[in-house]
């Protein structure tokens, strides 16, 4: 076993740190002690369960299992992002479709170009990062879009009244929204390695891989997160636009939202 990876005994010993956090919460009367303990326990059980299932998938099901795993992740991510955008018409299918399309396109390119190898061991963690990036961008774009429609309804209707199509009337708002939704991932890309050491690279270094090899992975990860976020955000915005307007280029009434 790699000496850099903690043993189960080591994991047990790290509970001391949870105890420290609980002690702080208790002494300072934060009313958080119980919540911290439960959260820590839950994290341990959740990760153990995921690890066990992953082990089964990796050992016995191969790529098909990995694909199934990704589908489940996309569905869960769609629910999370869709719930954030509650109030937008057809939020759940829009969010799920955007995350699925962003993930499929990004992962497809990585696999087609042979940047990552088509093994379950690779596809699942890489896919997970892609889904998560797509989910964040989708949730952001849809929440922003909901606000934009609420505040900019008079401007959108003013453009429609001038004979502009719904796509043209909505274009300035769509641009602002997608732009805003992409700022976090662009900033993260710009400052990567300076403000924080990113997860994939950290993990590889911890597992004994030398840093110059680890950054190759990280560079690919950053690029794929950019693509996943951009694609998912754009697709989410376009699909939401279709849901917001009817065939007669009319913005659906606010009371029909949701």
């Amino acid at each position, binding site marked *: 076993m790699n000496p850099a990876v903690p043993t189960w005994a080591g994991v047990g010993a790290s509970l001391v740190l949870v105890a420290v956090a609980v002690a702080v919460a208790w002494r300072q009367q934060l009313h958080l002690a119980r919540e911290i303990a439960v959260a820590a326990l839950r994290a341990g059980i959740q990760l153990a369960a995921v690890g066990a299932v992953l082990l089964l998938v990796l050992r016995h099901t191969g790529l098909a299992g990995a694909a199934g795993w990704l589908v489940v992740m996309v569905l869960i991510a769609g629910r999370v992002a869709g719930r954030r955008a509650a109030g937008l018409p057809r939020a759940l299918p829009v969010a799920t479709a955007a995350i699925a399309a962003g993930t499929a396109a990004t992962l497809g390119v990585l696999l087609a170009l042979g940047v990552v190898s088509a093994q379950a061991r690779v596809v699942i963690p890489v896919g997970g990062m892609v889904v998560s990036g797509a989910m964040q961008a989708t949730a952001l774009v849809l929440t922003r879009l909901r606000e934009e429609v609420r505040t900019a309804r*008079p*401007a959108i*209707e*003013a*453009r*429609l*009244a*001038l*004979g*502009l*199509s719904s796509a043209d009337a909505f274009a300035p708002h769509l641009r602002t929204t997608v732009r805003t939704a992409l700022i976090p991932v662009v900033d993260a890309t710009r400052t990567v390695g300076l403000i924080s050491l990113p997860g994939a690279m950290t993990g590889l270094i911890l597992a004994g891989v030398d840093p110059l090899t680890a950054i190759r992975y990280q560079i690919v990860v950053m690029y794929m997160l950019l693509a996943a976020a951009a694609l998912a955000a754009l697709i989410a915005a376009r699909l939401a636009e279709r849901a917001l307007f009817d065939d*007669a*280029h*009319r913005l659906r*009434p606010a*009371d*029909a939202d949701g």
Partner: protein
Amino acid sequence: MLTTGETVFGLERVTVQRGGALLLDDVSCRIPARSCTALVGPSGAGKSTLLRLLNRLEEPSDGVVRLHGRPLPELDVLAVRRRVGLVGQQPVLLTDRILDDLRVGRPDLDAEQAAGLLERVGLPPGMLERATAGLSGGEAQRVCLARALAVGPEVLLLDEPTSALDAVSAKAVETAVRDLVAAGTTAVLVSHNTAQARRIAGHALVLDHGRLTAAGAIDRIAYLDEGP
């Protein structure tokens, strides 16, 4: 009832229902050409709903709206909106510069045409390059009016165009509208200001709780004698 002259819009038994509320109830009427028709009545009577039916920003739940005899859904909706301009209650400017705002619905508008439009609404043509931020309410509303005119509509829909403005601005916008109507533009004016309706319009439709209660030449509408 109005019977003479060319009809631009005809409504036949139009009902608009939304979320359980009856916004318009079995309304039949006509809007004559080359004059201004005022839609009057108390708040919540359905005036704005009726106005928005005319450029299909609203759809009837029942009944038919006709433009020159043809049901609106048979016509291309974007073409209808270019023929039927709308100016809302609050001035909504869409760009940073007046000239750009005038070009939103008509990208090929040249500076000379744009200057002509400003003159039609009583604004100095020299304003074209000015920023839209910082305009007074009356100036902003007249830019909105000019922007609607830029598309070359045959009908203007005016939804309480002066109600959000101070007295001086309101007068300037009203003068611009009266000049347009005097020049033969067909207009439909929603107003709860009966004195203003009388000054601008030649005909009136009175709505109350979604029902049409009176229609005819403006000087024969009793409702207008009671109001402010």
